[in-house]
């Protein structure tokens, strides 16, 4: 999702070393599987592994020569450069802050929305509401972000018109640093929360109803049941959603390109956007050094989560 | 029709040895049942025979020919799986015909054989239907039919009845027994249910932790379990175990003092040394109850299970953690807490030494004792 991308933690198991036992005959006997996997392997290598490796290599080269047949290697100079660039450091912290805020906001609100949607009182309205929540997930973000950009326009945006009708003060939208940051938090929430809600909703439907019935028999109130019966059972779903959300929001990009271009006063200059703007000016070395840093952060997080899950499994 | 020999067959998954080197012979037309608790390796053994798992050592011989490196489809076997494994996108007919069609069998031959198998299992009327419209029992029949169609040398069954409800299970058990009789084929059957094993098998192979504990006919295993595990596993309700110490031996007799009080003297020439801890095993039908006047072990009734023609009385005795079950003929009513005397028939006793092995005089001596009692 680009929801496109999400990291399946169990696949880290692939890190285990392969066994190359009597390889020759094994390969011949399983040639059909090699044939089946060949296109996939080729695609993964050409459009995945190669670019990643190339990306890391280029991050060690002088941007000016990066695309020539014999690039000049400057080794860690690009990394030194970006880490002595205040704008990069601030965008790194800003990205992390944005990620934490968004993860908490999305996971909690998605959980709340899912609980409400699964309550019996909504009846037939629930599926319609669920569809509405999910709609932004599948619609082109170029369109939805442009719409939101105009909705937040302080000149003729619907948001301020609405606030005015309600007698509330205007909202600065993307025109002031702090407000712009939160505008993006909101728009990203609007775009993604449906996905997390649906995951929670599906998990809620899979819950063991007898536990809830038992709690009901014990006289637990709704909130007590939510807190003591449902949420503990949803813990795996909360974990999965959090992982997805962390990865989702770490790479926040399109919304910046479309709505703020990193402004105002760099208040929404997130890491991937900053890297991309370096790329646009052919600063390949620094752009890919930044990409590599972000990649390392994602891998680090994934490993931590994987370790944690592994431990939890043995509990 | 074929016989199967395993020769020091073993199987490991990485460092874990799930099957320790084992020998086994299953003769032509025999119905062999692999039984054991879950995780004992019985399914792995079956799957290794089938060729679905690679063996790590030893030989598998079918009719004397080594098949370890032969593809499973060329071993001439068929298998019935626990979850039926019917192809959901094919009709019953297509399911049963699949193997033959793969083998490029002529069309009318396919039809003939499928119809024949369907007739044996009485599923002719559902050949056009899809698996999802069938009940569990019907699906199991189709799965068996699919095996029959292929006319295999050996039929393999992997816990085929465990997904069925109790009533259906009994019914299908009988049908499989009848099928074995009709076809006279060699069959290997895996189950964790010792009742199925007892009722179906010509030969039971008891496995535990990847090792064969004992091989024999159902009654051999019942009457002369080789060790404490087999003794406890075969028979329902299970054998009772009482701890004791050898207090005297000689003259072909072994005298054991029970921890719960009382003594048992068994005929045993090669008895453990005096003072050695042993376990006495006795089946519920060899435990009887007497009044306070009778000589025996004092026991307290925990509960009684009324089965109509007989009653299982659960007793608590000193020095034994679990309950001792006595199988009493007829309908007996005993209030829990009642004190009774428990009596053990010495001829029904099995003696297990410290390592759990049964100590028993050579088979030749047994009939004498039996005659004596």
């Amino acid at each position: 999702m680009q929801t496109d991308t999400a990291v399946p933690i169990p696949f880290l198991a692939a890190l285990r070393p392969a066994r190359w036992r009597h390889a020759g005959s094994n390969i011949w006997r399983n040639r059909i599987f090699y044939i089946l996997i060949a296109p996939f392997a080729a695609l993964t290598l050409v459009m995945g592994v190669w670019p990643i490796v190339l990306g890391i290599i280029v991050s060690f080269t002088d941007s000016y020569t990066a695309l020539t047949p014999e690039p000049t290697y400057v080794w860690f100079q690009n990394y030194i450069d970006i880490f002595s660039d205040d704008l990069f450091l601030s965008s790194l912290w800003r990205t992390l802050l944005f990620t934490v805020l968004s993860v908490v906001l999305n996971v909690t609100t998605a959980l709340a929305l899912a609980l409400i949607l699964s309550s019996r009182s909504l009846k037939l309205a629930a599926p319609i509401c669920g569809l509405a929540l999910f709609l932004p997930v599948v619609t082109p973000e170029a369109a939805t972000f442009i719409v939101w950009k105009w909705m937040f326009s302080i000149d003729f945006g619907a948001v301020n018109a609405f606030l005015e009708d309600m007698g509330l003060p205007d909202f600065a939208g993307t025109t002031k640093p702090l407000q712009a940051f939160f505008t993006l938090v909101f728009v990203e929430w609007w775009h993604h929360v449906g996905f997390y809600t649906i995951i929670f909703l599906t998990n809620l439907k899979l819950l063991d109803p007898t536990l809830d019935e038992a709690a009901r028999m014990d006289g637990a109130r709704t909130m007590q049941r939510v807190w003591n019966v449902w949420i503990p059972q949803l813990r795996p779903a909360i974990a999965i959603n959090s992982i997805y959300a962390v990865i989702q929001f770490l790479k926040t990009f399109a919304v910046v390109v479309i709505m703020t271009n990193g402004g105002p006063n760099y208040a929404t200059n997130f890491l991937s956007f900053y890297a991309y703007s370096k790329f646009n000016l052919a600063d390949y070395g620094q752009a890919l050094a930044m990409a590599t840093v972000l990649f390392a952060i994602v891998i680090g997080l994934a490993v931590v989560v994987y370790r944690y899950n592994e431990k939890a499994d043995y509990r | 029709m074929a016989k199967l020999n395993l020769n020091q067959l073993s199987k490991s998954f990485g460092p874990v040895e799930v099957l320790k080197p084992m020998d086994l012979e299953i003769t032509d037309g025999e119905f062999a049942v692999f039984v054991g608790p879950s995780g004992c390796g019985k399914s792995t053994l079956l799957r290794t025979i089938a060729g679905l798992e690679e063996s790590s050592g030893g030989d598998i011989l079918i009719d004397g020919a080594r098949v370890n490196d032969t593809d499973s489809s060329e071993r001439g076997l068929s298998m019935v799986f626990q979850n039926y494994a019917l192809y959901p996108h094919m009709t019953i007919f297509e399911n049963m015909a699949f193997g033959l069609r793969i083998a490029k069998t002529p069309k009318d031959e396919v039809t003939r054989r499928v119809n024949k198998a369907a007739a044996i299992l009485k599923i002719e009327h559902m050949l056009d239907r899809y698996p999802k419209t069938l009940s569990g029992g019907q699906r199991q029949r189709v799965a068996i039919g699919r095996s029959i169609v292929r006319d295999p040398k050996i039929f393999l069954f992997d816990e085929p009845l465990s997904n069925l409800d109790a009533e259906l299970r009994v019914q299908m058990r009988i049908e499989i027994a009848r099928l074995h009789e009709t076809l006279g084929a060699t069959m290997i059957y895996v189950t964790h249910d010792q009742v199925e094993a007892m009722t179906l098998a010509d030969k039971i192979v008891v496995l535990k932790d990847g090792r064969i504990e004992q091989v024999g006919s159902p009654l051999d295993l019942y009457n002369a379990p080789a060790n404490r595990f087999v003794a406890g596993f075969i028979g329902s309700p299970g054998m009772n175990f009482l701890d004791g110490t050898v207090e005297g031996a000689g003259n072909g007799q072994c005298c054991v003092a029970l921890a719960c009080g009382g003594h048992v003297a068994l005929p045993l020439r090669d008895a453990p040394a005096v003072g050695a801890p042993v376990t006495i095993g006795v089946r519920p039908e060899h435990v009887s109850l007497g009044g306070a006047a009778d000589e025996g072990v004092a026991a307290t009734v925990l509960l009684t299970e009324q089965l109509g023609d007989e009653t299982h009385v659960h007793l608590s005795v000193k020095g034994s953690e679990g309950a001792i079950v006595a199988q009493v003929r007829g309908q007996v009513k005993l209030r829990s807490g009642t004190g009774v005397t428990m009596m053990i028939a010495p001829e029904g006793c099995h003696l297990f030494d410290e390592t759990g092995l049964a100590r028993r005089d050579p088979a030749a001596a047994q009939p004498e004792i039996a005659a004596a009692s």
Partner: protein
Amino acid sequence: MRNGLKQCAAAAALLALPVGASAQELLIWHDKGDLGTVMFEDIGKLFAEEHPGVTVRALSFPTDQWLSKSIAALNTNTAPDLLFNDNFRINVIQQSSGKLSGVQDMVDGLDDATRAALPEGALDASTLDGTLLMLPLQQATGAFGVRTSWLEAVGEEYPETWEDVFRIGKKFATEDPDGNGSDDTFGMALQAGNPSVTHQMLELFGFGAGLDHLIIDDEGNVVLDDPRNAKLIQTFLRIFQEEGLVSPDTINHVFTDMYQLIEGGRAGMFRVLDANVVKWDGIEGLAGDYTIGPIPSLFEDEPPAVEMHSVRSIVVTPSSDNPELAAQYAAFALQPESQAIMLKNKGSGVRGDIPLDGLSDTQAFFAKPQYPVNPNDFLSAKFAWYPELQEAFYREISDAIANPPADFDAWIKATAEKMQDKVADLKD
């Protein structure tokens, strides 16, 4: 099966062909929109009369895409035959790729009349590090425009000084000059969304008012805290602090947003470029309702003037399949008949000897200047690192817009020192 494979291979080969490549086609990338495309293709039709079989295709990209695509294409040898843009952007792509080899030969090969008609200023602006990098085709002038009906509505005249601008701006914002009954107008439209657009505004106001330099002088000394420069900066910051003078969004605005306000009738004062007027003449509500004039004055001793905003130039790329043909086309674009087409579509050419008949009043304002044209210092042509300095300076400006400095003098002094450090850094 084998046939299928062949078809697949053929299809794949077809897919792998770049779209629209052909030997006798010249491709130009520019960022001047549909009118720019018409302009180049019309010149192409004239050119084809002398070179039968040649077609010229022009593609317009959004400016940021033009920049990144041109850089990437030069670096990967996938560029089109010709690239056209403002001189400072050609400088940027050269600094990011180093692939352009200059046009001295082309200029030397021009006929005498054409060579003589090329202003020296335009050639200077087309020079980077001492090499004549690009062929100037248009000299763009920046002026100031005010909505005439709005002036009438609030009872004002064309603003001559910045004090006038602030006063009129306030009235525009509060007195509903368009009479639509709603409070939706601003005094001025501006762009401050990134370093280069903000710089353009500062240059327009600064050079137009007679400054010689903006941040640094020809030697690279920081002149920011020079009283005249400081006044410009202070005035610029004041624009953002005056209530309603500009839309609060301005801090994010690039020219599209700015044009949105202008063309949508939301702002009363704005920048006018030669390139704008042809399009604006066709916009209902705007055409005929704005007065073009000199830049508001900052200093009493300077005459009212306009700014030489940029020189729009063309380069032949090394990846061109037909470099000679491309060069011929570029030179052809300097011929009087081509220049006339440019004037008609984009409001300007570079030659001083083009006939001006058939132009609208607004076009004539730029084609035949009535005011002195103060040149931009075009320091990016002199210092390769100038854009980076611009960016550093922009960070300070945008920070000051977001958090107005309490003591401006101290701020400008501190900023000048920072820039001095930055220059020292960059010179290394």
